């Protein structure tokens, strides 16, 4: 088993302490609410698309663990200025990395610094924490106006049992 302490690298701790793009976008065109039923954590993601395609502004806020918060913070930085299609591709790559299907050291990818989250694949209970912001962004893209989508309604989201 990999040492979980390796996941808590300085870049993740820094984004946890000082999350970038914290808050909500004024005049957002898309937004969604994501929940982690395992712990009750939640984050909201708001996005403003220019011409219905390029991410002009993105912000997030909520209550979550360091892994989730840092993942959300770095996600907002990574997708800003990208097209919706590019962001969706990145969502898929992040998901594949976090679930151990994509080895960022071997396969070509666009994740860059986001590969610091590769270690969550060894922590099955924490994979959801890292992926939650990305699922929520995906849900936001696929939700019109101000309708809030819980992660449970997200087709990409497969909740595990929870008491």
């Amino acid at each position: 088993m990999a040492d979980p302490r390796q996941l808590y690298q300085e870049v993740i701790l820094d984004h946890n302490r000082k999350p970038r793009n914290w808050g909500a976008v004024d005049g957002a065109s898309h937004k969604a609410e994501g929940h982690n039923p395992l712990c009750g954590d939640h984050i909201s993601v708001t996005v403003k698309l220019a011409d219905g395609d390029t991410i002009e502004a993105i912000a997030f806020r909520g209550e979550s663990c360091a892994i989730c918060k840092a993942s959300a913070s770095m996600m907002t930085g990574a997708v800003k200025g990208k097209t919706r299609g590019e962001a969706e591709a990145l969502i898929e790559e992040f998901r594949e990395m976090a679930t151990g299907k994509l080895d960022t050291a071997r396969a070509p990818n666009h994740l860059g610094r986001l590969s610091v989250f590769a270690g969550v694949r060894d922590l099955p209970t924490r994979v959801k924490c890292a992926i939650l912001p990305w699922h929520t962004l995906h849900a936001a893209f696929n939700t019109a106006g101000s309708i809030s989508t819980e992660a449970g309604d997200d087709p990409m989201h497969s909740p595990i049992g929870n008491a």
Partner: protein
Amino acid sequence: MNAPITPLSRSGAYRQSEFDVERIRADFPILNNVTVGDRPLVYLDNAASSQMPQPVIDRFVRYQTREHANIHRAVHYLSETATAEYEAARRKVQAFLNAKEDREIVFTRGTTEAINLVAHGWGRKFLKAGDEVILTTLEHHSNIVPWQMVCGEKGATIRVVPINDAGELLIDDYEKLFNERTRFVGVAHVSNALGTVNPVREMIATAHRHGVPVLVDGAQAAPHLAVDVQALDCDFYAFSGHKTCGPTGSGVLYGKAALLEAMQPYQGGGDMILSVTFEKTTYNEIPHKFEAGTPPIAPIITLGAALDYLTAIGLDNIAAHEAVLLEYATQRMSEIPGLRIVGTARDKAAVLSFTLDGVHPHDVGTLLNAEGVAIRTGHHCAQPVMRRFNVAATSRASFAFYNTLEEVDALAQAVRTVQKVFS
């Protein structure tokens, strides 16, 4: 027979010098076999599930290697043996709870199924529109959701006993909740999230003054303190085998005979009937009326051995040792700056829920695991408790009689390591 267990204290009074925790730990293979990375396992998630000692494991193996057959059916040797052992386990539970009769003991898969059995068997038969069921803020979801389901179906309402900032039930408010519509009370003996020991005896007496039956969720009490259902005068008492050093898939519902007899069956099937035609089925007598189909025979027989094991050590000795652990843990954890203990009831079982400034419980749990310390993080299936304290989640260390003061030190040290990572 099981390996004999010498009582640790003949007088029944706890003396730490006589409570040989190292000898007890030697009985638990998992405590000695498992390391987490290069760290010895410090298992402090006993409120979720306890570990199983070798004599209890041996009982399971003996059943599977020498005694297994279906029960209550065939006339052959193995079936008779398995039936006798299964019914012997029922009498062990009867003694463990000091129930009046063995037919008042119904075997289930666990506490959750036991509560569902009462909600279905009693609630669906006797609750009507406008009736009220009293529960408490401290309940585990398993003593909330079954009642919501049956109340929703019947048009009945749930009233909730509030708690104070220490996590204690407000008993004056409890008494004020009673009125002519009150039909049932469900209360945890010990809170799983906070460790609060509720004054169930007094609460039962209050309910009975209003003619209302009471179910006690004993999942967190049965492994830690001596339970006497006749002294409590509770109408139902539920607990789980896997929290009492027994296996998963074994659980108990105690019910007063008259109440069990008045209830409708929970599930239909074999063993719960006397006669079946397509026109009419006559149900079996209690407790068999509630044990449809082939029960978890091996887990139940093994549970009997687990209760023997706990009884040999002595529940009073267990409670006394755990009180020492709780007191020491409370002291050590209180010394840590930025750590807040959630749940500070005067009467507490050995559960320590806490939050850490600036660190989410999930991160605490992952980093404690890196130090070999196993705790539970999250809402503990008690979201109303979390909301009351305005937290989404806590970290929870929960102790058993095989834990040591050194393990408390390991916990405190590991928490300080977490703080260093996040500093």
